[in-house]
């Protein structure tokens, strides 16, 4: 499965990528929402988006809302440095919100698993 990772912090992005590649996902990285949009257009195979919340210009939540407005149905997982509840309260449409901490390497794959198995089958 192909995943888009959006994070303005290079190291955080690499870290997320390492965790996902370890799960044998194919990862595309983008440094901001605009670059993320471009990658999504070029790579129609992407099936999930993992984005950081706190980014300059366009935040993770704004990115999510923009995608929905454009009619995207891709599942969207938000990464945040704070409590996930806050972000979920702000944008309940998010498929999942995972805290960026030491447990992220376990929590993110678990969240992806839950999100993907909750999707209606497209067959």
């Amino acid at each position, binding site marked *: 499965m192909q995943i888009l990772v959006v994070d*303005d*912090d290079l*190291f*955080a992005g*690499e*870290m997320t990528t*390492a*965790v996902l*590649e*370890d799960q*044998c*996902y*194919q*990862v595309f990285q983008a440094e901001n929402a605009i670059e993320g949009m471009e990658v999504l257009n070029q790579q129609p195979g992407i099936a999930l988006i993992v984005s950081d919340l*706190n*980014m*300059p210009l366009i935040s993770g939540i704004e990115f999510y809302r923009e995608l929905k407005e454009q009619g995207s149905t891709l599942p969207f997982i938000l990464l*945040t*440095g704070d409590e996930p509840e806050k972000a979920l309260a702000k944008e309940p449409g998010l498929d999942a919100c995972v805290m*960026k*901490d*030491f447990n*992220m*390497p376990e929590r993110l794959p678990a969240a992806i698993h839950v999100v993907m198995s909750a999707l209606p089958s497209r067959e």
Partner: protein
Amino acid sequence: MNINQQPLQKKIAQLRASFISQLPARMDTIKSQVSMLVDDGCNNLTMLSDLHRAFHSLNGTGKSFGLFELSVIAAQAEALMMQLLDTPDELQREQWVTKLDVLMQALSIQVQAYAHAENEHQFAVEEVLEPEHTSVVVLKDSVPLIYICDDEPEQVDYLAHQLHCFGYEIQHFTETAAFRQAVLARRPDAVIMDVFFPQSRTAGTDELSHIKDATGQHLPAIVLSGSNSFESRLSAVRAGCSAYFTKPARPMDLAAALDELIEDGHQEPYQILIVDDEPEVAEYHSLILQNAGMVVHQIHNPTLIFEALKNFSPDLMLVDMYMPVCSGSELAALVRQVPAYVGLPIVFLSNETDVDKQFSAMQAGVEGFITKPVIPHQLVASVKLRAERMRTLRGLMAKDSLTGLYNHTTTTEMLVSALANAVRQQESLAVVMIDLDKFKNINDTYGHMAGDKVIVALARMLKHRLRNSDVIGRYGGEEFALVLRNITADAAEALVNELREDFSKIVFDSGQEQFHCNFSAGISMYPGHDHAEDLRMAADEALYQAKNQGRNQVVMSRPDYE
């Protein structure tokens, strides 16, 4: 499909290392932004939100990489920026400027501390990056790098080869110019320098002085010289060399001097636990101690004491005497009731000048008093002194006096905890029992002094060649035990065989005669043997088999049911 060659943990370790290496540059950017913000007043909204994000990212990414100290400070800075953005009028300019300044200082100290700790593991990272290029079994994470500068290659070749067997990485230079370039390119852990070179009678030591002047850093060095003249010795002292050997020097003696030099520089920072119910006070003392290079952990609630002791394992505890839940004396008594913490130095901070009250606290087992308000250098000095003594005592209790390896009891304890850890982490574990072959003959033939040298040589070699996470113990007279974590049976066997071969190449010198010595070893593995006692016994049986089959060999234990 993206096939992954490196385990996730290694990748994260690499990312963490590069994150740390770019922290100083990141801090520089933040510093210049902060100074612009301060010059500009609080009106610069762009700068504020840039800084907010910079701290936020330090906080978040720091947390992901387990750099908790960094992320805690960054989180405070992030909150301060947020406050300035949301309610700029509530904060006095002076207040936030001071607060920001303190936080920036704390961040800088922390960044330096990480960089320092990371430097020590630099070679580990290099090993991780290119495992396929190393021909030997990759199991060392910090091989000391030694430069030898001497214009007589024949003598040095023998020395280099022997030192290599002890587990040093040796590079040899015959000219001082090439040596200088190498030092500038990659700093060695220590240098062995000749004094006399064709161009000048003291060219070698002069070169060390030049490097010291040019880089401002003292290069740990010992002198190996053909001359015993006063002039030559004086030049060595002036260049800051710590030992002087005349040729021919014995490799064993040089190795001992090198180890002393290297260990001096690799002193781990002292770990101090501060217990104070007032966070600001704790923070202040913490900053003073951090400035002196110590690692500090604070708790503001005495009930968390045992958790903190367990997770942080401090060298010393600094306790406020008056706290709401329980007093400092009560806390000390509480801690002293746990056998593991009987020896932990506890120092009180109090406004108490009454000698009687101080005395009653002493009875609860307190090492010393510092009266508030503290004088920074006094606090640092008294904490350092006691922490140092604690380290020494701890070492004496757990370690064998001849070799500095763990003694029988400590090794057994560490095997039990390493095994528990391996079970938890689902990793493998190897136990190796090593016994020197015909050691009694060596003692009888060459004397006990020579026998001791053999034991020290093996200990030295094991220390250099194994990872910091491996346990090396002296189990009995000529018997050694190793606990190797996360290693396959094949790798363990290959490693021990390599050690065995290299050890048999070391030339010992009894004064009259030269001789060699070798060892036999038995290995047992978890999984296969699932209890500490089984592992030890299986390794012992394998060792016995190795001895029976003619010695100087390694035998791997195979569980019966296989």
